[in-house]
């Protein structure tokens, strides 16, 4: 059934370095079959006797039909778990759960779509671009990072996108600055109808602010630390405004990771806003 997550033991097919990042391709047909752009997978790290209990979550970069179905994801080494993953070799077994989360919603009619990614956050944008182009959407890219070796997927973006704008903080590639700095101009040039954004929280906040100013819808894929990825541990919550205007602490793994940007209270991430449903003090009257 589409969307129903499964737990599988996948075999590593290939490992590769992509500039500052690592990419692993794993044979996992049951996950590849169910995949839609924006989904993520979680992995157990450290082997059978591991002392690392929380699963690591990664956005799916690509699925391919090889060997019945493969899943590729991209990561940076940030701690002992990702260091262990970076040491995996072809034919190693990995414990995967997926596909997880709410995928990117796609426009019903052809539209001009601007895809914005920062750092390895751009990884899930290419499967999205594929799906959009199959629906006759125009696709443009804005990709950025601190330095050129951390801009992920520039070549592929140039191949797929109508236009591709690159930014680096150190000016080593494309324009100097961040993706947010160039966004307004690119929106105007490409006549974007909708923006999709993946990357760190401050970047998503910046992208959302620009889109709100220009009055165009923005879908953001949020990254938040999680232990389970399946909606049971309640640790990956962010304040999000629901259809009735009420702020709720919602799980990134289950209600997200894709949200409408203007619904996420970026300035209040890491807090419980005083007006959130069930906030401390809000139930004093009982």
């Amino acid at each position, binding site marked *: 059934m589409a969307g*129903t*997550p*499964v*737990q599988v033991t996948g075999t590593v097919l290939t490992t590769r370095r992509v500039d500052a990042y690592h990419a692993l391709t794993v044979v996992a047909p049951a996950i590849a079959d169910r995949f839609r752009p924006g989904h993520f997978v979680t992995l*157990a790290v450290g082997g059978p006797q591991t*002392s*690392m*209990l*929380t*699963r690591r979550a990664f956005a799916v970069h690509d699925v391919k039909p090889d060997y019945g179905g493969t899943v590729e994801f991209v990561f940076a080494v940030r701690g002992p778990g990702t260091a262990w993953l970076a040491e995996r070799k072809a034919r190693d077994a990995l*414990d995967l*759960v997926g596909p997880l989360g709410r995928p990117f919603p796609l426009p019903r009619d052809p539209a001009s779509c601007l895809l914005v990614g920062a750092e390895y956050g751009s990884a899930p944008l290419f499967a999205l671009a594929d799906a959009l182009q199959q629906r006759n959407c125009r696709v443009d890219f804005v990709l950025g990072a601190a330095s050129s070796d951390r801009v992920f997927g520039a070549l592929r973006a140039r191949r797929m996108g109508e236009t591709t704008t690159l930014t680096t903080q150190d000016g080593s590639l494309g324009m100097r600055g961040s993706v947010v700095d160039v966004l307004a101009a690119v929106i105007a040039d490409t006549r974007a109808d909708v923006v999709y954004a993946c990357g760190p929280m401050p970047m998503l906040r910046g992208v959302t602010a620009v889109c709100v100013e220009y009055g165009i819808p923005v879908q953001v894929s949020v990254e*938040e*630390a*999680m*232990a*389970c990825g*399946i*909606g*049971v*541990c*309640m*640790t*990956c*919550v*962010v304040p999000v405004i629901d259809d009735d205007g009420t702020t*709720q*602490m919602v799980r990134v793994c*289950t209600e997200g990771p894709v949200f409408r940007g203007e619904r996420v209270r970026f300035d209040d*991430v*890491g*807090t*419980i806003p005083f007006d*959130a*449903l*069930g*906030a*401390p003090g*809000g*139930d004093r009257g*009982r």
Partner: protein
Amino acid sequence: MAVDMRAYLAHVELPNPILAAAGCAGTGRELAPFADVTRLGALTTRSITMAPRAGRPTPRMAETPSGMLNAVGLQGPGVEVFLARELPWLAERGARTVVSIGGGSVAEYAALARRLADAPGVTAVEINLSCPNVEDRGRVFARDGGAAAEVVASVRAAMRYDVPVVAKLAPDVADVVAIARACVDSGADALAMINTPIGMSIDVDTMRPALAAGTGGLSGPAIRPLAVRCVWQVHAALPGVPLIGMGGVTSGRDALELVLAGACAVAVGTTLFHDPYACPRILRELEELLAERGFDRLADAVGLAHRPAHRNDLEESPL
């Protein structure tokens, strides 16, 4: 040969002893794609509160060696939404549901119990005593035998007689046996242990506490020896009281360790985050281990470790 795996919480029969622990199985819906919730001995809900609760700010979680710290802060929609949307889903499927409740005062626990008293599908009520008592400057009930006893008595009085009341204890107390006894004396039909002891971790890169709340509950295999010790001590002191053991169970071997210490049922918590299929696997492993050791019934293994090792042969003797 099949082992009789039935477990009893007071008079309530469970088809098997493997439960999902409170706060670790969501509403049941999240676990359902991975494991049939009706095949669990029972599913324990997260602790239900009267009013909706937004919980604690993030970060709420930090991984630690063989464990994790959490400070979720009992986030949940409150008892009315629980009764309208969550409990019926479990009841319709025939899942056995242990409803965990959390409150800030004796009156709040009692009110929760009254609200649950007529709800269909409540297999048992578990009192999460690791909640701060707002009437005692936030001292948790689990650390105060008197306060714990008051809560248990008020919940027992409000619940239907045929629904067992389980008191859930914390390990980081001066005398867990004294708290256990206070709970049983005031009407608890069974005890669950252990809830998470309080720990802390500091991120040496940011040089600040890893959790927004500062401290959090430690869970996972790191706390298993604490769980074994608590179950052992309480079973030794109160051998007739059914105990639900939990704390770092990852395998059938871990579950058997708690059974041998005196637990008649075993709950799985943090392991579900790592392996959502864990409960049926642990049940199968436990059954195999019991069969290998020649047991016909799970019940015969409960508390067995308390018996002197080389006296086993004497028990058969006519003397």
